[in-house]
Each structure stands twice: as structure tokens, then as C-alpha cells.
């Protein structure tokens, strides 16, 4: 069930009352709606970090414009697929590394202007590795369920950001 909150428009009525009209939110009863607040905060933070790196002048902090564009594109695809927001693990002028960590494993996405590399590793071994050029990466959202499947070792069902349907990825 979709719930849409709307507020009536600004107007002057007979008594001196002003009423504000605004769409406050659309929320879904399903899990997606509840995720969105947390997701939004994480990605706001990531977006701001990318802006600061993109605008920095010091060589140690700055990332090149093509890297900035690709990193934003990948992050947008992650967000649209309701993937947890990554942290920025490291960066340099030519690349940014996104990271998701839990007790057992780490997942890394190394993003450069020409290439995206995905890596899932545990303390014992590398469990998943995948490289793709940015030209061939038409739909980044498909990459991340595959990474999650590799992390969990079992099929993963995720929400497709472009459609309101669920996809299953099998390692």
C-alpha cells in the first residue's frame, strides 16, 4: 500500500489563514520504504564526500573529474538498487575505493575513469574478483547482487531500481 502525504497549497482564505501545500513523502508498507531513510543519510554523506574530493585542490585529497563522474554514477546505481551505502576506503587522483565491511569479509569497489574492479575477500582468501571497463558497464546495479551473493555464498534477492520487481542473483 502506498501512502502519499500532501499538504494543501498556500492561499489566503476568508479568515487570515495561510495553508502550506507540499508533498511530504511517499512511503511503501514494504521494506523498501523503511530502508530509504537510512539509505538516504548514508548516500548524502557519500555524495558530500565525493563533492569535497572533486573540488579539492591539494593533490592528496583531489580526484580527477572523470573519476568523480564515474564514482557518482556508480554510487547512484547503488542507491537506486537499495544497496547499503559504502564508505570511502581510500582515494587518489586516479581512483576511489568504496568499501563495505563486516566481521567476516570486506567488499571493495575500485573505481577509476576507465575501469571498475570488484573484490570480495576474507582473511583467508579472495572470494570474488571482477573487472569491467566503464564502457561495458551499462547497468552497474547488476554487479552488486553478484558481489553480495559471493559474500553470502547463497542466492540473493534484491530490488531492481528501474522496476518495482525483485531479482535473484546466484553465486
Amino acid at each position, binding site marked *: 500500500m502506498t501512502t502519499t502525504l500532501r499538504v494543501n497549497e498556500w492561499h489566503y482564505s476568508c479568515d487570515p*489563514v495561510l*495553508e502550506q501545500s507540499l508533498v511530504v513523502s511517499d512511503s511503501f508498507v514494504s521494506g523498501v520504504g523503511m530502508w530509504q531513510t537510512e539509505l538516504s543519510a548514508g548516500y548524502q554523506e557519500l555524495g*558530500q564526500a565525493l563533492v569535497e574530493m572533486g573540488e579539492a585542490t591539494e593533490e592528496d585529497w583531489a580526484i580527477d*573529474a572523470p573519476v568523480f563522474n564515474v564514482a557518482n*554514477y556508480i554510487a547512484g546505481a547503488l542507491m*537506486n538498487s537499495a544497496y547499503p551505502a559504502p564508505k570511502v576506503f581510500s582515494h587518489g587522483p586516479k581512483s576511489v575505493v568504496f568499501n563495505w565491511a563486516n566481521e567476516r569479509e570486506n567488499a571493495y569497489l575500485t573505481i577509476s575513469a576507465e575501469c571498475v574492479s570488484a573484490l570480495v575477500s576474507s582473511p583467508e582468501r579472495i572470494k570474488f574478483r571482477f573487472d569491467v571497463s566503464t564502457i561495458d558497464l551499462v547497468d552497474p546495479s547488476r554487479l552488486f547482487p553478484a558481489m553480495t551473493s559471493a559474500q553470502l555464498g547463497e542466492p540473493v534477492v534484491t530490488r531492481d531500481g*528501474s522496476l*518495482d520487481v525483485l531479482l535473484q542473483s546466484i553465486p
Partner: protein
Amino acid sequence: MSLWKPLSGRVGLVASAPTTPSAISVPSLYREAWGADPHGFQQAPNALMVAMAQGRKGNLNATCTVAPNRVDFGLSPVNQPSMGSEPKLNLIDDSTVFHSELLRIINELGTGAIKVPDQFDRAALFVQFASIEPNVMEANRAISATIPERYRPKLTNEEAFVLQVNLPRAIPQHDDVRVNFLTKWSVEQFQVFSLAVQAGGFQGGASAQAGMLAPRIQSFLGACITFDCSLASVAKTGLLDRERRAATFLEGLRLVSNALVESGLNFKGFSNVNTTH
């Protein structure tokens, strides 16, 4: 008796390649699309947040939003001034104007009159129709009547009904392009929240409520039919050209028209009858 009307429409483009976030100016896009300056504009502090411009196009609310990796041009009903009466959920009265505005946006995206970077090449069309009903049983009756017989369940007082079907297909003249065509039949709850403030604004005082009147909330139950047509796959690699982009949108509009007819709903403007759903 059910009174079906359009509720909202959206012509969207999704990026299939990285773009330069600063290349898109939301107010400029709004002006190109709707022919006037927006009434309101909210800038996004970074590319992972949404920027939005909104205003009026005739008797419709018009918006232009730029979200991560997508651009959308939206139409929705205008909320008429309530003059202190109960909040109301408005629908779009004139389906002809609604259809012609959607078609105009699609055509102008096709000709390049609305300048969106080429990386935004995946077309997505969203159109929603609704009938406001007094209770769950009436809403279920209204929605059941529009569901084709081969899908139609027997409903009585079940709540939160949703049925969604996707029929992917290739588009005419471009069989290398496949689209998903989603139809969703549902009963939705809408809440209209009205905040009133006395003219002159906050007059001071210790209470945070000084100058504010009690908010009013009114709930509405709507039987809704929602159509979502978006690009599924393209046989060729590389960015989709404008011709195929426009063809995807036009096919979506045609499929919506056909589906409405099959649902027993006739809206002026949506009158193209061709193949069944």
C-alpha cells in the same frame, strides 16, 4: 459509481553511462520543458540528492527533477484553494490536456528541443489513474471491474490489494529494443495533510505552536491503475539514439491507451486502439 481520472504522469530518462553532474541545470531544463520559469526550485548539494523545479502548466502541476542517474518531467493535479474547508485529494480533470502534454514532452525530447545529455538514453514512462472510493469494498469493486478477466480475482473486503503484471515486448520498427510494460492494479490509501498558519506568521511567545492552527489530516481510498513502460534491453551496445528513445516512449503511450480500452476505461486523448494488453 466510480469516476476514474488521471492522477499523475512522468516522462523519465535513466542514464546508462557516467555524466558530469554539473552539466544539468534543473531550472533551465524546466524552462525548456514547460516554457516558463519555475515557481520554486530546490538545488541538490551533491549528485546523490534530488534537485527539483516545479510550477504550473495550465491546470496542471509541472515538475522537473534530477535524481541520481535520472531526469524526470512530471505532471500532477493542482490542489485548489480550500478556503478553510476539509482537505481534498484532487485528480486531473482534463485527460486530453494531460495526454497532449505527455506527448509534447516526448516529442521535444526526441527533437532535442529539451536538451538532456545523451547519456540519459533509457526511456521510462509512468502514468497513473485513480478513482476515489468511499470504502474498501467499493474500491475493490471498482478495481476488479478494470482487471482483464484472465487475471481477475474475486474480491470482497480484502485490504491493500495489489496485482502487478509485466508483459515485455519488442517495439515496432525497432525489434532490437525491448521494453518492460508493467500494469499494476491496486487499492491505495492517500493522506492529505493540511497545515494552517495565521497571516503575519509567528507572533512570538513561549509556545512553539504560537500562530499555528491544528493540522488537519484527511484520508482517501483510491482504486488505482498504474502503467510503467521502461527500456528492458537493447541488442546493440552503446548509447540509444534519440529515434529509439522517442519510439520507446511512444510505444509506452500506445500500450497505455490500449490497456485502458481493455480495462473498459475511455479517456479523451488516450484513444489509440490497436492490439490488446
